[in-house]
């Protein structure tokens, strides 16, 4: 039982940065912008968050800073794609190059100025501790209610985004813009502003995901290559979650489970005799599976008669005179 509990706990912990990235990318894609720069945004957020946490010892400011750095990246993207109508794929990739370079450049300066390590106070604040009462429930308490504070932040943001899209007017307008910008324009919605606002918000959420990686996964020490592909996995997860941030909560759990499973497969195999085959499966299969499944989801969803759940205009820019 302990094996399962520990595994679930670790899966949630590993899935959280993906949940941030995915939620951010969902908001962005819903506005019709396919931002492939999530990796870069997360890197910028990772640096922005870590730097402020390191300098000020204030978690709140650190998360704000991470969000602002993510926004800065998203602003570059938005200006090029929305105002200047640049190619979305290429701009996204450029953002990834830029963001990765940005974090590792300034990270290097941080390292040279003395080994950057978060203070005792900060690591204490970010440590995993059970929530009073709820954390004492057997099994569930450990799995769900004993995490670091940022895990809950990610889930709350995902739920807010989900409710925003489903129940609010701006959320509906956002979907209209993503599905058919010309029709939205005709309805009197300001397409460009809607795109700007949501791409920036999406960037901010991705940036916070980066901060999660640098603050939590790095054990308080800065690492230049910390994001290491998690931005790209987040893009995959958007598809897996079929553009719903509520589904993304479960999706991130599953993806997180795959990433930790390679380490835990042996535990399972030794504890349960019927699972002994697990330890014989190569690690590469476990890490590959999320991508294989996502590719499968992508293909199957496109086979359905209604088409995929992807916002229809996603990937193409809106140019009024061409409608």
């Amino acid at each position, binding site marked *: 039982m302990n094996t399962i509990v520990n595994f679930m706990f670790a899966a949630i912990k590993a899935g959280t940065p993906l949940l941030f990235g995915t939620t951010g990318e969902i908001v962005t894609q819903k506005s019709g912008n396919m931002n492939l720069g999530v990796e870069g945004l997360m890197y910028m957020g990772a640096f922005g968050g870590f730097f402020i946490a390191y300098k000020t010892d204030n978690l709140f400011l650190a998360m704000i800073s991470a969000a602002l750095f993510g926004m800065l990246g998203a602003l570059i993207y938005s200006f090029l794609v929305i105002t200047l109508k640049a*190619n979305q794929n290429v701009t996204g990739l450029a953002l990834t190059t830029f963001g990765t370079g940005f974090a590792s*450049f300034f990270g290097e300066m941080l390292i040279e100025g003395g080994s950057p390590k978060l203070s005792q106070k900060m690591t204490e604040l970010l440590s995993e501790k059970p929530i009073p009462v709820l954390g004492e429930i057997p099994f569930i308490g450990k799995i769900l209610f004993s995490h670091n504070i940022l895990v809950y932040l990610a889930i709350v943001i995902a739920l807010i985004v989900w409710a925003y899209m489903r129940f609010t007017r701006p959320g509906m307008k956002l979907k209209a813009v993503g599905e058919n910008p010309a029709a939205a324009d005709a309805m009197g919605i300001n397409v460009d502003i809607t795109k700007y606002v949501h791409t920036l918000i999406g960037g901010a959420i991705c940036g916070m995901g980066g901060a999660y990686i640098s603050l939590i996964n790095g054990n308080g020490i800065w690492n230049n290559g910390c994001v290491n592909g998690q931005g790209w996995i987040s893009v995959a997860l958007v598809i897996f979650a079929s553009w719903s941030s509520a589904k993304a909560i479960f999706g991130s759990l599953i993806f997180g489970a795959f990433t930790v499973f390679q380490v835990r497969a042996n535990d399972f195999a030794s504890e349960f005799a019927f699972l002994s085959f697990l330890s014989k499966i190569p690690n590469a299969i476990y890490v590959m599976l999320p991508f294989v499944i996502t590719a499968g989801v992508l293909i199957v969803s496109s086979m359905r008669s209604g088409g995929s759940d992807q916002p229809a205009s996603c990937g193409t820019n809106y140019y009024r005179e061409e409608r």
Partner: protein
Amino acid sequence: MNNKNKKISIHIAKRPPLPAKTVTLLYIFAIFLALCFGGIFILCLGVNPFKFFAKVFTGSLQSKLARVALMRIIMPLFITSIGVSVAFKMKFWNTGAEGQFIMGAVFACWAAFTFENLPQPIMLLLMAVSAIIGGGLFGMVTAFFKCKFGTNETLLTLMFNYIALYIVQLLRDGIWRDPAAGGFPKIAQLPENAWVYQLGGIDMTWVICIILYIIANIYFSKTKQGYEISVVGDSQNTARYAGMDVNKIVMRTMFISSAICALAGMFQVAGDGTSHTLTTGIASGIGFTAITVAWLGKLNPTGIMAVSVLFGILEKGCGVAKSTFNLSPAVADILQGIILFVILGFDFVITYKIVFDKKNANAEEKKGENA
């Protein structure tokens, strides 16, 4: 609406295509401008940007060793970018170059390990054919789904990158694990008869680059297939009305695109740069950089050549400049990013113009009110 007479409408209109010479000059100016922005950034860090760029340029060319290292950056980047540009001309967003590159290396290694005793020329030929067929089909699968079901190719090819990457890991930990490595998971070095020939102090991949450059130029502008690609890229409907088999063209083009990327992978693993060994880091982002290079080069072989060289110099030169100025080599990524941003911005100036018209705005508004 009170200030109606003050209102000036600004709208964007497509401009008629500018002459090629003006466009080239504008892009050269854009790169210059980008380097200025980069220079300001470097100045803010307290380093003289003129000295820095001078060092980047001379540093990347200073010795034979540096020049060889520079070529090793440029060659795979150029081949892969050409591969990407073939699909991009058709507006098929192949973001899977990284995976196709990796699979090319995998299939080349497969040929080398399976038929290990062939004479070198036959071996190299077999490896190339195997990479082209294997890597080409790996990419064509995505085109198949795109044609059949309309699956989003950007996202699908993106997923395939990671599948390819973990296939290498799977092989490394499994059937291709080198027993001689003493428990350390690695794939064995290719046999010597599978190494690319040396020519002029470097492996002869550069000859392939030149041949590919010539072929690409001819293919794009002089052949029926090249013409078909540009028609499908402009409008699939036009292509259909003209009686073209769009699905066939899309699948064929994607095969060619990924086969070229795979060929780059084959030369990477059989060349000197990687000590003739397949690792999980074989592509290390070349496939992604190639997409930006292809775009910056305006999908034109000459442009791609120029941008590959520019990016190569930045990457190599910033590595050399580190010791002099104590700036992290990651500054190369930042500079590349800035160049991309500025050029993407310049695309706007070249394609569109901003029209200010006061009269029309009022007229339009009135029309709207009446209706």
